[in-house]
Structure formats: C-alpha cells, structure tokens
C-alpha cells in the first residue's frame, strides 16, 4: 500500500509538471462542450427556400406566406419560372424549391384534389428528411384551415383526427440536452484511454520501466499506481463537464449524481483496462496512439452518440451490445434526462462491471508476460 502511494505521488508530480497537461485538462472539456454542442447539431433552421409560383392566386400566396412565416424557412428567391429554381438549387443558394402549379386554386375551389411540388437538396439525407417533415406538417395545417374554412359554408362540423404530441424527458426537443451527456462520455473516454495507455508506453520508451521491473514492486502495485491518477483525473473531468453543461446549457440533472459517478467509475475502469491492454502490445507512443484511435472511433461512432442506435441495422445493434461506450451513453442519458434509478440501468451496469473485471485482469496478465 505504501509503495502504491509513492507511485501515485510520482504520477501526479509528472502529470502536473507536464506543461501541456493543465490546459488539456481544463480546455478540452470547455472546447468540446461549447463548440461541438453548438456546431454539431441536427436541428435545421433557416432552410433556404426558393419559390416558383405559377398560380399567382390568393391561395398560392397564402401557402407561400405560411412557409415564410415559419421559422424553419427563409425565402432565398422568387420566380415564375421553374428553371430559375433549379438553377438556384444547383448553385447551392437554396436548399429546396417550392413549386406551385398553374390552376392550383381553381382545382381547390372546384373540390378537386391538387398538389404542389417540393424539390429538396438531399445530399445530406437527414436534412432532406427534415425538410420533408416540415413541409408535410405545413401542408397539414393548411389543409385544416381549408376544411374549416369550407365548413363555414356548408355548416357541417369537420371531422379529422387531431394529433397532439407530448415530448417526454426533453420537452422542448432541445438538441443540447441530448448532446451534452454524449460529449461528456467522449471526454471521459479520450482522457482515460490516452492517459493510461500512453503513460506506460512512455516509460517503456524512456527505459525507466526497466528500473521498475528490477525492483520488488508487484505488477498490481505498479498498475494501480498508474491507473488511480488517471481515474481521478477522468472523474474530475466528468464533474467539470457537468458543471459547464449546467452553467452554459442548463442541462437537466434529473437522476442521482452518486449513481452517475458510480457508473462512470466502473466505465472508466473498463477503458483503463483497454488502454493498459494497448500499452502491453505497443512499444512506442505512436503505435499506442494509432491503436487507441482505431478502437475509439469505432466505439464512438457505433455508440449512438450522433445517430440513434435503434436506426442501425440489426447486426450493428447486436454488435453494439459489446460496445462499452454505447452502454455508458445509455446510462448517462437515462440518469441525467430521465432520472432513472438503479433498477433501470442495472443490466448495463452489470455488463460494464463484468467488462471492467475482464479487461483489467487480461491486461494485468498480459502485462506480466512482457516483463
């Protein structure tokens, strides 16, 4: 135990003496949260809409007004000629072209069904989908106005299905609320993986590991001495990130923070075990960096951080059950946004605990052999 304390003291001295370290510990969370959360958003505002009105009637104008009035769309141009709209789409000055055909109002008045065309730039598929969704809801609203308007004439009560939404756990559909917990996971993962793996490989590179190996230090003491400081720093990063999230984004903290930190503790152990494993294979920091990044990118992209896991193909979802990042993202979102308790996350937690045990014991086993 005393030996471990001496080693931990040494690690902290080295970490804080490294001039690059303090800025990394404090700047990285701020930059990641403030910049990425604001920039990497799926919300679509200010869709540039080009309008081609071939009908030129009151009805067509009222449809255009409706689009103009919504905060999703802003008019980027207007023409009576469809090819102007296409040209604008090609030049990327518009995201969509709304085209109302001639005789639109006439058909409506005669009680015939009619339509207009929406041409969407769908290079970004999800943005295209969103524009489509907005348009449909707009048309529905217009239809409703139309039927109730006609109802005044016929004096019959209009009947249609009225759909009301209630968005639970994120009532304002606030994107940052969804994103911040995910970014916190990236933060904790990167710090734990890189600090732990790099650190041991660095000793290999410099050669100090020889001096350690020739001493009576036990492997578990050496490894504990390496992992504890990283664990403390990673947990500190999480707290620091939560504070920033609360101050800048007012993210909800619904659940039990103690439970969150317990989960984070277990998750960090998993990542530390992996970092340690990488360090037993790698002989240089460069190798360790490459291997770590490979795993990190796969794990993070599969984790449901940016894209919903439920939308992934079945094989990917199955594969994801072994992805620790996916489990922790689920846990952190459930605790922070839903206020989930222990019962709700116990399966994820049990899996992480098992994985932590596995990865650490494998890493320690392998580590012995390399000496």
């Amino acid at each position, binding site marked *: 135990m*005393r030996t471990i304390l001496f080693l931990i003291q*040494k690690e902290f001295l*080295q970490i804080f003496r*490294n001039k690059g370290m303090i800025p990394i510990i404090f700047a990285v969370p701020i930059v990641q949260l403030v910049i990425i959360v604001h920039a990497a958003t799926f919300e679509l505002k200010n869709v540039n809409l080009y309008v081609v009105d071939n009908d030129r009637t009151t009805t067509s104008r009222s449809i255009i007004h409706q689009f103009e009035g919504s905060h999703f769309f802003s008019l980027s141009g207007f023409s009576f000629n469809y090819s102007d709209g296409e040209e604008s789409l090609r030049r990327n000055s518009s995201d969509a072209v709304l085209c109302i055909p001639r005789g639109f109002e006439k058909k409506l008045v005669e009680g015939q069904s009619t339509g207009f065309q929406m041409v969407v730039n769908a290079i970004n598929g999800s943005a295209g989908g969103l524009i489509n969704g907005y348009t449909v809801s707009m048309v529905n609203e217009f239809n409703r106005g139309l039927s109730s308007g006609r109802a005044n004439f016929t004096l019959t009560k209009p009947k249609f299905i009225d759909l009301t939404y209630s968005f639970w756990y994120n009532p304002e559909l606030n994107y940052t609320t969804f994103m911040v917990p995910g970014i916190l996971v990236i933060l904790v993962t990167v710090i734990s993986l890189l600090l732990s793996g790099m650190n041991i490989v660095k000793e290999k590179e410099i050669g100090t590991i*020889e001096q350690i190996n020739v001493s009576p230090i036990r492997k578990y003491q050496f490894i504990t001495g390496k992992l504890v400081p990283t664990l403390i720093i990673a947990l500190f990063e999480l707290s620091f990130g939560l504070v920033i999230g609360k101050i800048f984004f007012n993210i909800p903290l619904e659940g039990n923070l103690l439970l969150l930190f317990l989960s984070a503790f277990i998750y960090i152990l998993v990542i530390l075990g992996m970092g340690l494993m990488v360090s037993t294979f790698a002989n240089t920091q460069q190798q360790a960096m490459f291997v770590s990044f490979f795993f990190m990118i796969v794990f993070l992209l599969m984790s449901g951080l940016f894209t919903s896991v439920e939308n992934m193909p079945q094989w990917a979802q199955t594969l994801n059950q072994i992805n620790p990042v996916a489990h922790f993202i689920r846990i952190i979102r459930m605790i922070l946004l839903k206020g989930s308790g222990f019962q709700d996350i116990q399966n994820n937690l049990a899996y992480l605990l098992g994985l932590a045990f596995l990865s650490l014991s494998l890493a320690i086993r392998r580590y012995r052999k390399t000496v």
Partner: protein
Amino acid sequence: MSETEPVIIVKDLVKKFGSFIANDHLSFEVYKGEIFGFLGANGAGKTTAIRILCGLSSPTSGEIMVAGYNAYNEADKIKKNIGYMSQKFSLYEDLTVTENIRLYGGIYGLSRKEIRSRTAELLEKLEIASVKDTLIRDLPLGWRQKLAFSVAIIHQPGIVFLDEPTGGVDPITRRQFWEMIYVTAHEGITVFVTTHYLDEAEYCDRVTIMTDGKIMALDTPLNLKKQFEVNTINEVFLKLARNT
C-alpha cells in the same frame, strides 16, 4: 574480502533467442564484496546475462543462484536484494533529485524517516545539495550517472549490477565513478559491472572476457596478463578476439 563466500553462482547458463545463442553455457561464481568485471565487445552477450541475473529476462536453461535465491522461482526475493543501474538512463527526468531519491526509497520499502536521512547523506556525499530541487533532465550526464548509481544502492543491497555505467561519460567523471564503486565494494556490497572500456577492467578484482556468447577467460587482471604474456587487458582482449 572473503573469497570463499559466493553470492552469485551460475552453472551452464544458456539463453537462446530463436536459433541465436546469446549466452552459451556460462559458468562462474562471484564472491561477496568483490568487483567483478564483465567485459566484451558490443553484442557479446553481457547485457543478456546481466538481465537474466536481475530477473528481467528468463534463462533458457542452466542453474542460477543470486544472493542465495534461485532465479527461476525466487525472483521476487532476488529483486529485494539487488540494485540495478542500466545502460539506458534510469532516473525520471521530469522529477527532481530529491523526488527521485524519495520514489526509489519508497519503492524499496524505506520508511519516510530513513528516506529523509538517506537523502541528506546522498546530497552531501555527491555534493549536489545545491541542485536538490532541480529536474534530472537539467543535470549534466556525469552527475546523473553518479546519482543513478547512488539511487541503485539506496536500499543497501547485497549486490549491485551496473550495466555499462560509464558509457558516454567524460574521463574525470569516470574516475570519480570508479572511486564510488570502490567505496561501495568496501562497504561489503558486491559490484557486478559490465563495460567495454578495457582500461576499467584493470580496476576490477576479477574480470571475465566474453566473445560471441562464451566466456573466454576469467581471472584477476594480473593473472590474465601473465597467462597471455601481455602488459594490458586490452592486449588480452585483442588476442582473444583474434582467436575467434
């Protein structure tokens, strides 16, 4: 010097890396309190042998006893009783002089009080009190090597292994270094030192000359010179090297 008490016994030590034989049936004994020199050109197998004796590498076959313990199953006990200073620089460059002494003292189980008194002793002996809070990376190489040697024996082991300790050090510091080795041996610590500076061999009580993984000669410098009818160990070495 009691020449009768062996602290290292090696019998038929073989170490193979694939088909390459780094150590070919080495057999020797090292006695308590002596300065035992291990000479050889680069690649002769000195470092391989020293790493095996320290428990950093396991032998392919052979019997090895270090400080009374078997190298195969009592490596932990051996590690408590030896000091080691490697070819590569072994102190932490981003820690200060006192922090390094404290760390290694702690690793070898010294109490805080012992660490404090040893630190003071060391700083005085090496005359480096003025740089005690200086990072190792800012010290000249000679100072670092002397400090590394002192740190390697901070727990007063029975044997200290020095793997080319004077590599790249200026002649004056080398001389001072050898004075430290004499003092250490005088205190009863056995010194096992590898080198490829053949003049240093003259300072040893007994020397072993290795070429191509084999021990070619083992005796006191005086006897070796007599045996080969030459004036310096250098000439002994050249004679041996030519024969292979």
